[in-house]
């Protein structure tokens, strides 16, 4: 019995690490750049497929691909913001109108990226075997790749947290999140900072996707599910907070692993029920005041 409980908890943690990482990116894009990026999952999918292609076609180590996926997706995100969203932001009549329009534009991006991916890679489910041997961990057995995934997720989250908390650029980002007008007056180039945030969000999605491809099956239509999970996590943890995203991620991972143990078909249903309950009862997140 003890072992089963431990199994469930550890499985939840392993799942939660990934959830947290993909939520941090979305949280940054919505929390600072005010773009509710419904296409977030498509960036994750891109990261996963780039890693898969590099591994199966050229034998590149997936951990090495992390270093390539991140910058590539950063660039895509950065350019997208400059070309599309900054124009929408300047033209919008109100912040609310901008949020609505930018979200709808993201739906368009979702269709574009997903269908380009289907054209390039085909619609089939893909996967590869990497560090798939079992490891004993605190009395339970897990595939080594899941532990690697969790380790990288935590390290990336930590580095990112330090970047926001300690660097000058991080300070500019936080200032733009709190008070864009005032930050602009203080000499922060708002458009560039927001583009940077959107790019960094895409970067996190790319890293998340690369990690996901190591231990889960991937396919071009996988995006929306991950977007929804990321959304649920940031609602759980509170918008714009990195520690919140990690707590929310682990919480959701735990719920997922418990429900999967009891009734596998209901895991997604449970996620949505929690999501809606939190929205109704504590829209500022479980940590929010």
């Amino acid at each position, binding site marked *: 019995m003890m072992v089963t409980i431990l199994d469930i908890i550890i499985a939840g943690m392993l799942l939660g690490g990934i959830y947290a990482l993909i939520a941090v990116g979305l949280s940054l894009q*919505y929390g600072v750049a005010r773009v*509710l990026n419904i296409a977030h999952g498509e960036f994750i999918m891109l990261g996963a497929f780039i890693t898969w292609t590099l591994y199966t076609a050229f034998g590149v180590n997936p951990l090495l691909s992390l270093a390539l996926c991140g910058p590539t997706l950063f660039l895509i995100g950065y350019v997208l913001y400059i070309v*599309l969203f900054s*124009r*929408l932001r300047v*033209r*919008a009549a109100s912040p*609310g*109108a901008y*949020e*609505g*329009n930018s*979200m*709808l*534009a993201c*739906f*368009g*991006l*979702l*269709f*574009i990226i*997903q*269908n*380009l991916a289907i*054209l390039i890679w085909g619609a089939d489910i893909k996967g590869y075997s990497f560090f798939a041997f079992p490891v004993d961990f605190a009395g339970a057995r897990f595939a080594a790749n899941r532990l690697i995934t969790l380790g990288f997720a935590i390290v990336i989250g930590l580095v990112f947290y330090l970047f926001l908390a300690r660097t000058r650029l991080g300070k500019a980002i936080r200032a733009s999140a709190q008070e864009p007008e005032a930050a602009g007056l203080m000499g922060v180039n708002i458009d560039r900072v927001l583009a940077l945030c959107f790019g960094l969000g895409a970067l996190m999605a790319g890293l998340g996707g690369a990690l996901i491809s190591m231990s889960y099956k991937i396919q071009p239509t996988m995006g*929306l599910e991950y977007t*929804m999970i990321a*959304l649920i996590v940031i*609602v759980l943890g509170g918008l714009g907070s990195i520690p919140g995203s990690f707590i929310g991620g682990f919480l959701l991972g735990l719920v997922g692993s418990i429900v999967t143990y009891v009734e596998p*078909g*209901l895991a*997604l*249903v449970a996620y*949505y*029920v929690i*999501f*809606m309950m939190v*929205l*109704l009862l504590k*829209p500022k997140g479980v940590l929010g005041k």
Partner: protein
Amino acid sequence: MNGRITTLNRLQRGIVPLVLLAVFALSPLVLKQYALILLTNTFMYIILAVSWSMFSGPTGYISLAPAAFFGAGVYTSAVLGFALPFPLIVITGGLASFCMAFLVGALTLRLRGIYFVMFTFGLVELLLNFVLWWEVTVTGTTGRVVPPLGNTTVFYFMLAILACLLLTAFRLKHSKYGFALQSIGQGEEAAAHTGIHVTALKMNTFALSAFFMGAAGVVMATRWTYIDPRIAFNPTLSFLPVLMAIFGGLGQLYGPIIGAAIFTYLEEFLITRFPYHYMLIFGITMVIAIRYLPDGLVGLVQKAWKQWSRRKHGAAQG
């Protein structure tokens, strides 16, 4: 004199829709089956787009729940299919969606902005996944069969729902409730202070708009004849009406109608010509529409008209 002109205007205004209705009512006599089906599809999308904009247009609350209300209608049709006369099922499906929307509205309409959007979209996914699980584990089936009705009957039912919806939307827009909704969109606090029952009005309008979506779902199910949760609660049916309405323009009642008509035709055209690139082209259209036409087609035409008349006016002066 003035009074006579307004009566005349009113008459003219009433005549155009009546003529259109008569033309459409007689069209099954002339049209081929393919055109009839295309027209039925167009009506379905117009119903979704217009009923969506009935609530979301003036208030600015972007609801992504149309697929949930539509799907509720589809499942009503599948469950009651053989048990009741069809017109009753249409009304039942509409009422089911009405009640669901009323409940959702009571829970969520205090959520503002993006939280409301996320909740309504979560609702679609929740229903989809729940019904999927229910059908597999409890009823042990994946899909259901709906008794077919024949293309012409489906067409007439869709036309009837559309006519009722347009009449309702038009009456609502020009009533005091329409103006109240508009003022909620411009400033909810201010609207409440002028004595508008903000919550009650929002809930009722939201539920009313869901009624028509549900009714359309009931009718459409009989044309599809086979349905499963992924067909009934297809999230695309949440995005399309929103996109169509915004593409057409939310300012006028005919904006969403034009948007829906263009997009249905575009969909048909793209699916037959470019079946593999259809969704890609669709996404590109969506991004371009939002990037370049924030006020929709109607807004674009109005702007061009204003510019043209100003130029003409300027030329006459100079």
